[in-house]
């Protein structure tokens, strides 16, 4: 069922994991959210500063696997200056890609191989959950 997985831990993913972007705490966040992966106990916090439905800054924190960490790093990157609808858009692109459809935007395309690893898909989705949790909640 699984194809050869060499591309799952691609250089893109490994680089994001080694030196994640925007990892740490965002003091002046307006929104905060968290998500947890029941399978492994991983937890990820996402903090956003939002003005006029646009993300001015995004940071994440938490201990997680390489896939989740890389995804969080990519997401924080993608959100800077983007409309808040971007979170839902990227989540939808990931789901499409996992179902065999078009690749997701930018570095997220590096997760294409996850279509053969259903159990690990939630790792890549974890930061998306945390960010949408943040947007859904009351302002921090």
């Amino acid at each position, binding site marked *: *069922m*699984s194809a050869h997985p060499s591309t799952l831990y691609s250089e893109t993913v490994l680089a994001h994991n080694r030196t994640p972007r925007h990892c740490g705490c965002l003091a002046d966040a307006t929104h905060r959210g968290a998500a947890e992966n*029941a*399978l492994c106990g991983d937890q990820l916090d996402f903090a956003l500063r939002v003005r006029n439905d646009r993300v001015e800054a995004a940071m994440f924190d938490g201990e997680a696997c390489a896939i989740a960490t890389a995804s969080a790093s990519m997401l924080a990157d993608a959100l800077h200056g983007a409309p808040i609808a971007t979170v839902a858009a990227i989540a939808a692109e990931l789901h499409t890609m996992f179902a065999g459809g078009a690749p997701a935007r930018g570095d997220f395309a590096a997760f294409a191989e996850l279509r053969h*690893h259903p*159990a690990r898909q939630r790792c890549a989705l974890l930061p998306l959950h945390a960010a949408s949790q943040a947007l859904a909640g009351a302002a921090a």
Partner: protein
Amino acid sequence: MNRLDDIPALRAEFPQLARRIHGKPLVYFDNANTAQKPQLVIDAVSDYYRLHNANVARAVHTLGEEATTLYEATRDKLARFVGARSREEVVFTRGTTEAVNLVAYSFLRPTLKPGDEILVSRMEHHANIVPWQLVAAETGAKVVPAPITASGELDVEGTVALMNPRTRLVGLVHVSNALGTVNPVAEIIAAAKARGIATLIDGSQAVPHFRVDVAALDCDFYVLTGHKLFAPTGTGALIARRALLDAMPPFMGGGEMIRKVSFEGTTFNDPPHKFEPGTPNIAGFIGLGAAIDWLQAIGMDAIAAREARLRDAMRAALAAVDGLRLVGDARARAAVFSFVVEGAHAHDLATLLDHDGIAVRSGHHCAHPTMQFFGVPATARASLAFYNTEDEIAVFIDALAKARRMLA
């Protein structure tokens, strides 16, 4: 061409149908007890153990993902097969019995009060009586029998008349395993719903024989068992409204049904997983998925049509047997026939028929109250599936006459 047009080829898919019993070809007329399995279902089970064996929902390795994918695919297949609104409405259980107990413990017990009533018909299987008695005994509620007629039909008017503000749930068998009656479940569900009463339909004997659409029936709970559906033993399901599952506390505790466990407090997973603790019967459910695919390739409507012909032939043949009395002779009935024969005890008939290769069940069919109603300790029961034939009916009728002569 439908596979039902070539019955010998179809029968060849069932290895056990080729067995000989006491030197005679097996005539398997005990399908209401458990059904035979096509090779493809047996292979699905072996292939899992030979190639994909791993635990589900736990490991990220290849085998774990394969096992999980195969296992969870059955949930989608079963949801489509019975017309559930979503896969989350499908809770896997060991069978019908566990499914009813789950509803009794988790849906009813927490809010059951003294004087509350659970209304079930007098033709229920023990599985749809005893679980209610257990929770009723604990809470001071009571189980009320809904009336049936001398021909083994549900007394609909009498049943509806028993629905009252204390009635918390109506439980009804879709097709009676003891009498063969097909009940007007939609009518009863509608009457209960109009009164705000929850409904549970026992579909054990329905899903193997005709198309069931749970969403159209609009019952709250529908229960079924896999081994009667040409699938492995130890499989079954509760199909329930999502909103009810969300509100119900868990039944059994353990792994997978939780989100987070600590000694300070535990939070539970979403349905259906909330109700599925521990390692399930993975191989069995993979086999159930194969059985459903196989049934749908033939088509439940084609199966129902063939079984109606077998039923009519059997009904006519039994009517001609001297000294035989049908126990239950409803107008709407399945190819399940309970009967008693003058001067011949059901057990002796079953043993003597077995000597001629014919498997029928004798006894109370886990339906003591039904037997009490008809004033018989036991009946013999012949129950057919689509792989049975008119030739087998003829063999059975001859053997019955022979057995009777022997005992007379």
